[in-house]
């Protein structure tokens, strides 16, 4: 319960950080309450009550429980007609102003513009802070790679292990492609959609590939790789062998062999891999690599 309360409070803070629609809603409610002639009383009372319940952490936590706790805090605001009430308040305000100053065209235009600007400033004005991805353009690159891949062994079912940029859209582009691991490897939230989990070898493959993508390294320490992914700090790799100072060492050759054992028949390694690393993987798999769209491709039998 404490965790839920904390989530509700943090959720409210987060809800009010990016934009100011919550503040705008409260301002509109105040305006509607202050008017002598109260229109749409039911809507006004309901919105005021629900907004209060969503803001107050205890009732917010209860509402989160009601919405099955699976969804984030933000979604309890579905119960509050935010857009509806702001649009209603703005319409009442502006049309009343127009009626009051029928002949003053300049004033009317200025006030209308002001209301528009207030709304835009409270929102993002079309420039949202979150990192936008033009998914169609990004998935096109993956589609090109998959098309080139399909030329090797036509009609054969592909089971792929590749850098994240390819794996991310592979299943969206082509449902026929199987993957060593999916997006839920790095987007943990997606694990809520399945009871299946990944084995240690799959996680090792992911860790090694993530660092190989960045550094083109031969070997990485699993713990460091894991840390690196968590903290996004730079790391250096040292030493060879299966273990270093008692810590597990991930090598490209081992990971490639594990991937093959798990049924992978196409491996794409990043184009920035160094020669030694490539040769080790080649000798481990007994297959020569070839260049394909900026990657090194291994076609396994």
């Amino acid at each position: 319960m404490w965790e839920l309360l904390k989530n509700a409070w943090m959720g409210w803070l987060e809800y009010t950080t990016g934009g100011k629609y919550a503040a705008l809603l409260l301002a509109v409610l105040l305006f509607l309450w202050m008017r002598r002639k109260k229109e749409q009383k039911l809507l006004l009372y309901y919105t005021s009550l629900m907004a209060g319940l969503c803001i107050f952490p205890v009732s917010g936590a209860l509402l989160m429980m009601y919405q099955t706790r699976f969804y984030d805090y933000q979604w309890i605001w579905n119960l509050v007609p935010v857009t509806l009430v702001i649009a209603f308040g703005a319409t009442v305000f502006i049309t009343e102003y127009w009626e009051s100053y029928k002949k003053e065209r300049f004033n009317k235009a200025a006030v209308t513009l002001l209301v528009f600007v207030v709304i835009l400033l409270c929102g993002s004005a079309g420039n949202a802070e979150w990192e936008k991805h033009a998914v169609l353009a990004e998935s096109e690159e993956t589609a090109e790679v998959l098309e080139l891949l399909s030329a090797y062994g036509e009609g054969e079912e592909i089971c792929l292990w590749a850098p994240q940029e390819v794996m991310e859209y592979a299943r969206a582009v082509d449902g026929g492609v199987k993957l060593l691991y999916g997006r839920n490897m790095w987007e943990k939230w997606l694990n809520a959609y399945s009871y299946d989990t990944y084995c240690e070898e799959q996680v090792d493959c992911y860790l090694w590939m993530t660092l190989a993508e960045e550094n083109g390294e031969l070997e990485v320490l699993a713990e460091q790789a894991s840390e690196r992914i968590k903290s996004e700090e730079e790391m250096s790799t040292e030493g060879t062998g299966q273990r270093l100072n008692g810590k597990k060492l991930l090598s490209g050759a081992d990971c490639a062999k594990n991937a093959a054992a798990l049924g992978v028949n196409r491996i794409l390694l990043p184009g920035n891999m160094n020669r030694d690393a490539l040769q080790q993987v080649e000798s481990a798999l007994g297959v020569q690599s070839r260049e394909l769209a900026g990657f090194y491709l291994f076609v396994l039998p």
Partner: protein
Amino acid sequence: MLGKAALGILYKRQSGKECYWEDCFLVGGILCIGLSEAVHLGTLFLHKNFSDCIKLFVLFLELFMVVSVLLIVWRRAREKAEVQEGRTSGGSRQAWARGEIIVFAAFFLLALWQVITIVTEQYVYLRRDMTVEAVNSFLTADAIYQVNPMTGQPYEIGAPLRLKILCLPTLYGILCRIFGLSAMQVVWGVIPVITLLLSYLAYSLLARQLFSKSRLKRGCFLVFAALLFWAGDYAYGMDGFGLLHGGFWGVTIRGAVLVPYVIGLVLRRRWKLVVLCVFAEACIVWTLYGLGACVFVAAGLLGLEQLMKSLKKRKGGKEETVCGNS
């Protein structure tokens, strides 16, 4: 057509229960969700192929369409006869003022611009979502939730039942097959546009309810709603964010279409349609045993209204007593 026929059945000839053209589209959309849920559950629990599911959906849809056409023709004939007998009169259409034309033109431009943005830019928020992968896995494996959408490998343990019973991926998969489009085109391009338009229909109905006497105010309301959607895409969970970057999510359909529609329906006292919305929400979003946002909003509004009435009554009673004593 489906929506219009359904409205005809639900509110036959009740006075004061007239429905608008927006209702027809919204109820039609809800019925499509209901139909896809029925075939989805049938396919899932009877372990049928996804292609059978599509056939069943198309069959039912065709059947319903035929029945709808017949019902509409029959109603039209009846209405015509009534007009000829002079029992009802055709409503007179009011001419559009210049200000109204400007306001509605501004709204249409904003809405059109949003549609173009959705279709061309496709800034989709993919985190926490696997709809496209799920649709692709249904289409490729020809089965519902037999393979893990994330990897394409058969499930070892499985997926939660509360996820499996939701019908949106099935509906999108059916649309992919019927129109020969890819899952990406349908999920990231077509569905968000439909959701956006349905949302505007719901808001248009609300505008009719809130500003029944002024077309200008209705237009202003819609312009503000469009502006709020556009500027409100700054954070996950906002109406505008859902509509512009995740129109295919069940939560977006709930928040931007069903909930505003339910509010409008409660204000208009269309309880049967409220029930339809409640069922639709249960088909697309994980809810607490079907008790989702629609039930909450409807119950909240109704409860408050009763409270207001009883308070008013008590106040009136007291005043009467005071007047009687004096």
